[in-house]
């Protein structure tokens, strides 16, 4: 499989540049309570209503690890095919800021809970493996609000101490498209595992993006810049595009690139220098003496391993093997856990004599279109999997035609109505009685004798005309297959 077609290169005069990207994704652990305290973590609560004495760093307060968050991190590590470290250490990352009450963030520096792993991306021209460097647990900081008052900054500590997983990729990504696919894949895996809701609008998933460029074919890495805290896939792609071009321009001008931290301005669509390497904080990491090293046993890890649900890659493989779906169809259906769930429910409800292709087409076609229009998640679908299965079966067993099915589907949208009932009430059942259709066709041929003759003389295009007339006469209910068969016989 050639990768050449989709290779993402930046062209300048005679030179071509390759872009090298690594991501540090911050994923909020799905957990009722914080990493080291029992405060709630609900999004959107009134400011400073989910803050304990520990979160606000009162004198003498001590962190106590939340075992559930540890399990979530290990599960995520398993989902990333990564090494789980039986011993990990929490360190203090020291810096002063008003929304960092302790004056340090508890993080994992030298000994993270999860080591190297990998993620497989399905790109249009084949699969791509992206290495995972590590995953570690850390506390989130609070939130500084600068725009409520002209003089003062307000601090909301609800987020202070919330558990984050920082997932660091190797510098394996080469284009904005791959970054998009990578984030989507991570999100998909974590949503399957229930370890992060992946909600980027609420900040549950955000990333620091490391970008460097190098001449095409070069083995050396260029100097990288880190774009901090980008919170949507679109912005990540825009930031990378801007930043890569900025770096290429510098090189073309014979200038060097400074290793620095940059911010992406979403309004101006540009990255701006935040601080240079010289100004980088000295975080003075050291093991947090309030916490013992975190040790987990093989049994603890195995227990979690044994309860890992089927993940997207495995599910895709099964859909292809078991349901004979194409890799493309399978990829679409497994990318989101709720879509996969919906599809599997449709499959289950269709019973023995099922038409898998038809089901897939209806979900990815009509249903997705409706969800898209109404801006709904599949979990909020106006048509239940059960009723969609019934609809597909009605088509499959010839009760209704595909065309009528679209009408029925429209009617189902209002209150998730049973398609069987709609068909009965509206009398939409397909006419499949050959005698009745024959009579209908006889009449049409009779009414259009000249056209019938023309057809017989070789004007085969007119066949469509007769089908259309027959359909029209039956109010669209006649079984199209029967119309075809009988028409052919009669016009011979």
């Amino acid at each position: 499989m050639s990768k050449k077609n989709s290779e993402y290169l930046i062209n300048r005069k005679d030179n071509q540049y390759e872009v090298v990207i690594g991501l540090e994704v911050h994923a909020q652990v799905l957990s009722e309570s914080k990493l080291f305290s029992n405060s709630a973590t609900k999004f959107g609560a009134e400011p400073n209503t989910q803050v304990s004495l520990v979160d606000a760093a009162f004198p003498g307060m001590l962190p106590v690890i939340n075992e559930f968050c540890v399990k979530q991190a290990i599960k995520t590590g398993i989902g990333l095919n990564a090494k789980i470290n039986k011993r990990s250490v929490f360190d203090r990352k020291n810096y002063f800021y008003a929304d960092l009450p302790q004056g340090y963030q508890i993080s994992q520096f030298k000994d993270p809970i999860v080591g190297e792993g990998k993620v497989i991306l399905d790109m249009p021209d084949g699969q791509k493996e992206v290495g995972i460097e590590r995953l570690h647990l850390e506390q989130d900081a609070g939130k500084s609000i600068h725009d409520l008052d002209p003089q003062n900054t307000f601090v909301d500590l609800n987020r202070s101490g919330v558990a984050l997983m920082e997932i660091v990729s190797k510098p394996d990504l080469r284009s904005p498209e791959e970054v998009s696919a990578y984030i989507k894949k991570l999100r998909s895996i974590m949503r399957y595992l229930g370890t992060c809701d992946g909600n980027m609008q609420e900040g549950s998933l955000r990333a620091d993006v490391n970008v460097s460029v190098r001449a095409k074919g070069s083995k050396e890495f260029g100097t990288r810049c880190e774009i901090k805290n980008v919170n949507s896939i679109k912005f990540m792609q825009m930031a990378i595009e801007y930043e890569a071009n900025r770096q290429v321009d510098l090189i073309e001008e014979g200038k060097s690139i400074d290793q620095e931290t940059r911010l992406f301005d979403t309004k101006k669509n540009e990255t701006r220098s935040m601080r240079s390497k010289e100004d980088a904080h000295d975080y003075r990491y050291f093991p947090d003496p309030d916490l013992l090293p975190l040790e987990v046993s093989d049994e603890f890890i195995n227990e979690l391993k044994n309860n890992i649900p089927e993940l997207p890659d495995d599910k895709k493989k099964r859909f292809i093997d078991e349901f004979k779906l194409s890799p493309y169809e399978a990829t679409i259906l497994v990318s989101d856990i709720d879509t996969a769930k919906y599809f599997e429910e449709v499959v289950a409800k269709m019973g023995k004599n099922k038409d898998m292709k038809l089901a897939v087409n209806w979900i990815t076609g009509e249903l997705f279109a409706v969800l898209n229009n109404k801006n709904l998640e599949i979990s909020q679908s106006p048509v239940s999997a059960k009723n969609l299965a019934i609809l597909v079966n009605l088509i499959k067993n010839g009760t209704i035609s595909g065309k009528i099915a679209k009408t029925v589907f429209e009617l189902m949208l209002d209150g998730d109505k049973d398609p069987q009932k709609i068909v009965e009430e509206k009398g939409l059942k397909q006419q499949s009685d050959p005698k009745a259709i024959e009579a209908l066709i006889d009449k049409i041929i009779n009414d259009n004798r000249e056209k019938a003759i023309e057809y017989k003389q070789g004007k085969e295009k007119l066949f469509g005309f007769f089908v259309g007339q027959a359909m029209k006469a039956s109010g669209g209910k006649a079984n199209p297959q029967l119309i075809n068969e009988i028409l052919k016989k009669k016009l011979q």
Partner: protein
Amino acid sequence: MSDITKQSLTELVENIKNKKLSSTDVTKAFIERSEKSKELNAYITEDFTSALDKAKKFDQKPNLDLKLPGIPMAVKDLFCTNNVKTTAGSKILNNFVPTYESTVTENIWKEGAILLGKLNCDEFAMGSSNETSFFGNVQNPIDKDLVPGGSSGGSASAVAGQLTPITIGTDTGGSIRQPASFTGTVGLKPTYGSCSRYGIVAFASSLDQAGPMAQNVKDCALLQEVISTYDPKDSTSIDFKRNQYSKELTNNIKGKKIGIPKEYRVDGMPKEIEDLWQKGIQYVKDCGAETIDISLPHTSYALPTYYIVAPAEASSNLARYDGVKYGFRAEGENLIDMYEKTRSEGFGAEVQRRIMIGTYVLSSGYYDAYYLKAQKVRKLIKNDFDEAYKKVDAILTPSTPSSAFKIGEKTNDPVSMYLNDIFTVPVNLAGLPGISIPAGHDSKGYPLGLQIIGKAFDEQNILNIAFAMEEKINFKNKITDWWIK
């Protein structure tokens, strides 16, 4: 009973249980003496009115099954006490009133004791003479203008001066044992993990331990029994079987092997200290124990190691005092300016010195040479003790290299001040229990202490040895009440 304040805790408990004394009688007596003892400057916060109310309430419905029934006591101002100002001896917490209670003090109140007030200490427990307190020097009841030691100087002074029958201190590098030694009292630093650190203003988390300070070993054992509990709120608290230390206390130490480490015979140690040590060796032998010469080869590295590890942790622990959330705040032009002014004005010189040392040793480029190296040496020091304990049951050393010194004598010489902790610091680094008991006087009549170091979780053993030695030593503190006019 006019001499209530002269009674030991054990006697007071017995008299209250036998209804010879009421909690009100006892509380009143200690309040009266405390009020006459302002010159000692032992208290930062007095809570006398509330204490008397609680005593009266106790007497109305006395629960005499408790271990500390209606016993009044003052505690070091490093323990957070619900609704009572807690300062850690610092300006930066001058206005801080916790809404919560430390586990150790909670344990004490649950056994019936009553808070008299909060006792002076070195700022954030950083000091060996109580001279770094924002609230001024504490006088040693032994003599005017003599330091009581530190950092639990207020606690030591209050027990020795009989302002409280008993108290608790904290010990990071000797802060219970050194002031106990300077004031002729008994102080126990328990095994790291024995007493919860929850609610204690942190100095150096991997070293800090709360412990009892008393007039005698039995009182000390009783209070240890009360304060030592496993606490899930402190991740370094250890769930081990705790003894009924006072009930199981025995003076029978026959056959115990006591190690005498040669490295504790340091250069320039006064002959009085050496003589005291020899006397101590004779006492344990008289009790039927055996002494064995041992070696703790890395002892000389303990002090430099301590002065890397403790400031490193402190520099991070004290970052939370930034003027944003609670405590003292100096106004500034902007956030950074506010931080700088708050911390420059809020912290005293010694605290600032240690924050700077700690920040330095953790800095990139210095971390490996200082902090990491210190952690390695710390391990070696612990290994020394582990080796020694293959041969002996406990170790006997002097508590301090000298007796108490005059106020101001060492304030401009931090290193000489730090040397005070030379015998106590290794015990903290190794996380072991150690007890200081008064064992004699120097030529000036100032008390001198001996330290017994135990195996981890073996508090009972060192309390027993201390108890047996106490009987032989028959120490009498020479207190003239010089401060009472």
